[in-house]
């Protein structure tokens, strides 16, 4: 079945198909329709779940933590300030190894107030232990949320998953979305089998007690191990989902990278325009390519290295910045290349589209063309604030 859906509605359909049992969320623009739609599903008895209409995002994540600790399948969604407000519980969810799935409609952080697209919010949880998956389209949002539960609940992983999509350009823009049949999703995603350490009065165990310096470090190491194992699980789950639906997913998506001299790396809704730019430039004889990041954490090391190692210039276009350093994803990719011995490459960190600033096909063509010039330098790293007004 195909429906015309915004990414927000696609998220709600994804959660419904995943048969979430607890929805706990607090409204924030531009996330609201996700929760409104789920409320409709629940009250219309299309989805057997309980909605906890919490009084804050901190409580939304806390309720998801409680629900997941008791063996249920919880869902929440938030954005920007809301994600920052629940930040303490974000780390708690990962530390407690709870398979929670959260939609993040990525939006700029105030001040000044801005409700538009930006990735500073989702990247703030980068180091918490959450798996972070990004979506380009409404279809991907739906598919990613369904897959997220398989990944989160996988016994080798047991970590929460954040699924991101862009404010307004994705969240409020409708496109045709293929809905898999419920039976198909049920066969792909069976009910959660609670781990032996779920809260149970017949087995009185205590979660999260004080650990001394002799023990704490090992638990952090184990979170990282879970994330490292997740890389393989994400690929396997993406393949299996592909077999069932015809839409296969990996850690990254490569577009015409094979012979590319210049590759742009980006994520989310920008990727579509970069593809168009690549097609236009290819007709003009430029060897241009795109890498779309699907998985931000775990960092897709090998996949990125394979895609980028032959390029002479790599530009990373992102809606995020580490103040006092550079583009967050760009610095990671630059260091990946250098630590892997790939030195004959120019990497440029493009900071673009912050707070919803328009960036389109022509901009990406400009960026590509400038990279084709910069690649002659042979090596180096540079940060460019693209389209900054004087």
């Amino acid at each position, binding site marked *: 079945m195909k429906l015309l859906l915004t990414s927000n509605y696609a998220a709600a359909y994804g959660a419904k198909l995943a048969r979430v049992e607890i929805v706990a969320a607090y409204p924030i623009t531009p996330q609201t329709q996700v929760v409104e739609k789920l409320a409709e599903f629940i009250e219309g008895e299309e989805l057997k779940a309980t909605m906890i209409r919490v009084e804050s995002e901190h409580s939304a994540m806390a309720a998801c933590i409680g629900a997941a600790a008791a063996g249920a399948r919880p869902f929440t969604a938030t954005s920007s300030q809301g994600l920052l407000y629940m930040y303490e519980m974000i780390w708690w969810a990962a*530390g*407690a*190894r709870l398979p929670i799935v959260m939609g993040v409609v990525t939006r700029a952080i105030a001040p000044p107030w801005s409700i538009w697209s930006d990735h500073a919010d989702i990247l703030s949880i980068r180091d918490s232990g959450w798996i972070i998956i990004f979506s380009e389209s409404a279809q991907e949002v739906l598919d990613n949320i369904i897959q997220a539960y398989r990944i989160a609940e996988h*016994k080798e992983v*047991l970590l929460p998953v954040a699924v991101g999509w862009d404010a307004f350009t994705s969240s409020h823009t409708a496109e045709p979305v293929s809905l898999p049949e419920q039976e198909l999703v049920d066969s792909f995603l069976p009910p959660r089998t609670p*781990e*032996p*350490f779920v809260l149970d009065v017949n087995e*009185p*165990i*205590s*979660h*999260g*007690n004080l*650990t001394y310096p002799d*023990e704490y470090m090992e*638990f952090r190491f*184990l979170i990282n191990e*879970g994330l490292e194992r997740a890389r393989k699980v994400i690929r396997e789950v993406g393949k299996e989902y592909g077999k069932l639906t015809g839409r296969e997913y990996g850690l990254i998506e490569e577009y015409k990278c094979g012979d590319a001299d210049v590759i742009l790396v980006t994520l989310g809704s920008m990727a579509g325009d970069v593809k168009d730019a690549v097609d236009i430039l290819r007709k003009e004889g430029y060897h241009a390519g795109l890498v779309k990041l699907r998985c931000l954490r775990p960092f897709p090391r090998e996949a990125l290295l394979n895609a980028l190692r032959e390029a002479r210039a790599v530009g990373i276009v992102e809606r995020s910045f580490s103040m006092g350093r550079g583009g967050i994803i760009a610095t990671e990719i630059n260091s990946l290349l250098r630590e892997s011995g790939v030195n004959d490459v120019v990497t440029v960190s493009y900071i673009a589209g912050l707070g919803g600033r328009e960036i389109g096909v022509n901009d990406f063509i400009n960026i590509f063309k400038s990279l084709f010039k910069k690649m002659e330098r042979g090596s180096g790293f540079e940060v460019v604030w693209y389209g900054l007004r004087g």
Partner: protein
Amino acid sequence: MRVITPIAKPKEGSAGLTGKWRIFKPVINYSKCNNCGLCWLYCPEAAITLDGKNVPKIVYEYCKGCGICANECPVRAIDLIKEE
């Protein structure tokens, strides 16, 4: 299942033999004890048990020597003796 998250299981003496903390040792004078049960009721540590005949017995391995039992005993049947 590998333990991947800090799971704690019930155990007496989670903080060790807390009787070692004691400065004053409560000693029940059974000739005075009237079996009212208040020392058992008010022990914060659950370190006073009742036997089959409901006679209170202090578990010295864990008794921290707070002295609430002696303070609450209505017939002054519990003496506090300084530990060596």
